[in-house]
């Protein structure tokens, strides 16, 4: 029967994430953005909470939480509301852990999943996006060509989170023609010849997140670096998980901007009355709420399809499409609600707008 009530477990996880967002992320977000650096110890502290890779089974020393995209979406919304840079950074290990959990060989699971349940923040990340205007996961420009028993990788990846410190990159590359079926994932060590890691990229937003450009020039890797070995991955499903995850982060950013606007509009007065009493502002804020609620249901529904074992390609794609538009509009309106003050960096709304603008281009930056 149709039901939108989260389970007790979900409520508990959401609460944990919400507290992290409220106590550690949001208060530090401005300084982190200005300094273009995560707060010292943030990764360590957040890692200890175990939110990032909670579905790794006990067998690998994991928390064995049920693997649920719906639960993931709920948690990521909270983290997105805390701070986008910090959220993506702390979640980066799951970009590697979950595909390995779902498709990896026993050996890969043994190595990667154990690394993702240790006490240290794992120096693992994934590289999917490419620096072109028409980036398309079904037609990656990065290729992996068979050469004997090995693969040779060529291509350029961008927006690789935590890239400066990563030891190992999960690189998505095309092994044949176009389509999801022709994409496989390979582990590439930082030290392998042909790998170049750029300086930290400078972006419009998510400044505190360390992202790099990864260049692969005739990088040879052994067949056992391919996730899942000969069987490989179901990249279509991985993309659905990723799109749900990113959409959930965007919900968080938008929700934060919405909540800020509500509070501000009730305090700020013009001609002696709170601006919230003016329809131009009140209707704008009502619309924020309407679109936010609508988008959340699309994200949850896509996640629910994944939890039912379906590919959810269409659902996650449409959800992300709607969310990307929504988060831009809501964050833009949140700047408008503050007027000139919204333009000043001391106030968070312009940061949310800069972060919010990114979602339409982001792909593969998070995973549930």
């Amino acid at each position, binding site marked *: 029967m149709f039901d939108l009530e989260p389970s007790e477990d979900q409520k508990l996880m959401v609460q944990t994430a919400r507290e992290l967002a409220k106590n550690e992320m949001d208060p530090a977000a401005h300084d982190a953005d200005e300094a273009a650096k995560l707060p010292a110890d943030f990764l360590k502290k957040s890692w200890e909470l175990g939110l990032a890779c909670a579905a790794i089974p006990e067998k690998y020393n994991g928390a064995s939480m049920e693997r649920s995209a719906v639960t993931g979406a709920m948690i990521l919304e909270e983290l997105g509301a805390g701070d986008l840079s910090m959220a993506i950074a702390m979640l980066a290990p799951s970009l590697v852990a979950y595909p390995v959990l779902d498709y990896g060989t026993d050996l890969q699971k043994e190595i990667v999943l154990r690394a993702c349940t240790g006490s240290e923040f794992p120096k693992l990340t994934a590289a999917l996006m490419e620096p072109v205007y028409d980036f398309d996961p079904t037609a990656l420009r990065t290729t992996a060509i068979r050469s004997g028993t090995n693969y040779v990788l060529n291509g350029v990846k961008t927006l690789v989170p935590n890239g400066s410190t990563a030891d190992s990159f999960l690189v998505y590359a095309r092994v044949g023609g176009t389509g999801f079926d022709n994409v496989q994932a390979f582990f590439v060590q930082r030290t392998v010849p042909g790998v170049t890691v750029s300086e930290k990229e400078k972006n419009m937003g998510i400044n505190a997140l360390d992202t790099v450009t990864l260049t692969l020039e005739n990088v040879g890797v052994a067949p056992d670096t391919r996730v899942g070995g000969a069987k490989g991955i179901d990249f279509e499903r991985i993309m659905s998980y990723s799109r749900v995850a990113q959409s959930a982060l965007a919900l968080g950013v938008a929700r934060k901007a919405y909540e800020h606007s509500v509070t501000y509009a009730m305090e700020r007065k013009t001609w002696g009355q709170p601006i919230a*009493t003016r329809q131009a502002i009140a209707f704008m804020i009502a619309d924020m709420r309407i679109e936010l609620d609508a988008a959340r249901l699309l994200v949850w*529904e896509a996640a629910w399809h994944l939890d039912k074992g379906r590919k959810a390609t269409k659902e996650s794609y449409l959800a992300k499409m709607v969310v990307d538009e929504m988060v831009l509009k809501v964050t833009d309106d949140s700047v408008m609600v503050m007027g000139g003050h919204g333009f000043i960096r001391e106030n968070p709304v312009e940061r949310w707008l800069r972060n919010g603008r990114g979602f339409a281009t982001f792909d593969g930056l998070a995973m549930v």
Partner: protein
Amino acid sequence: MINFQHGDSLNNLAAAVEQIARDHMRPFTRAVDEKEHELNPDSYINTMYEVLKMTGGAMNSPVMGAKEGGEKKRRTGNITSVVFIEKMAWGDCGMYLATPMPLLGGAAVGSAGTPEQKQKFLARFREGKPKWAAMAITEPGMGSDSGAVTTTATLEGDEWVINGEKIFVTAGKRAVEDSEGFVVVWASVDRKAGRAGIKAFLVDHHTPGMKVAKLEHKHGIRCSDTAVLVFENCRIPKENLLGSADVKPTGDSKGFKGAMATFDATRPPVAASAVGVGRAAAEYTSEYLAKQGVAPRYGIGRNKLTAVEKDLMMMEAKVKASWLLTLKAAWMSDIGEPNNLEASICKCKSGRDMVWVCQKAVELLGSEGYSRKHLVEKWMRDSKIGDIYEGTQQIQKLVVARRIFGYSREQLA
């Protein structure tokens, strides 16, 4: 537990209603639009009435869920009702509004009526010939500001005497002239008391002093009769007052609020009817374009999509988002949660976005979309009413904003 799937029994009912929509609505949809009031969709009306009688009027009157003994008790009436209505409006929204059922009038009796009133006015929908009920609030000089009712009701002995003019009464003629139905009339018992003096009255069919003065000619939903009802010394029994007769001192609007609360139950059904029209247009458009070789490439890089693909996808997404919001609001009623905010959210979004969807449909079919050969132009005309009645888009935003800020209607007007 989060679940986006309905139970088997609802799915079976939904499939049955969809079949009715296909067999008894779609074949007549163009004709009832062109002929406006001249053609009664009788085959549909009679079939539907039998179905409604059989199912005990599953969708007759959405009711608020109740918290019994502090325990939330899950009901299914509201979700069932929106699922039915969405399917019927997908068939034809005008015909849906001409469906013999208690509709909004019934919802009012369902949520505010005494057991005797329910027996007297609702039981009749389970027997005999097709019947309709209507709700008359709007007046020539008053619409969104429903507190400004000028129609009066004066107690004379054992009777209320009603005087005034009501316009835009959906199913007004069918309810009071063509069948043994009834109309709920909003009237003031004390003009000085303002909103607190406004009460709802149950006026039975063919009551002397009430007459149908006119049927409107409309942009869309043409086969639905939209009537002007004139009341001249129309006498009804004293016990036909809905709710309490108390007029609280001016400023206190509890009684009025009670009447307004009906809208929390009826806005999701109106949203559902909007979604049905939007879905019809979205489905038709994608099927039509598929025949021309347009296949939306879900999943590929977004900057590779054509403008048409993007529009098709947005149509689909907006239909779904509106529908999920509608289900959410209905679900909240079913579990007994207050849903004033969510009811207005779903009505606002569905009303507005389904207009966009239908207008897009006309655009995407090119000149063919503008032709009356296809139904998309009709759906576009039908869709606009969802943005207007049961509180316009703007009025829904007012409700949403007031809820968000905790403002009264005086603080945010």
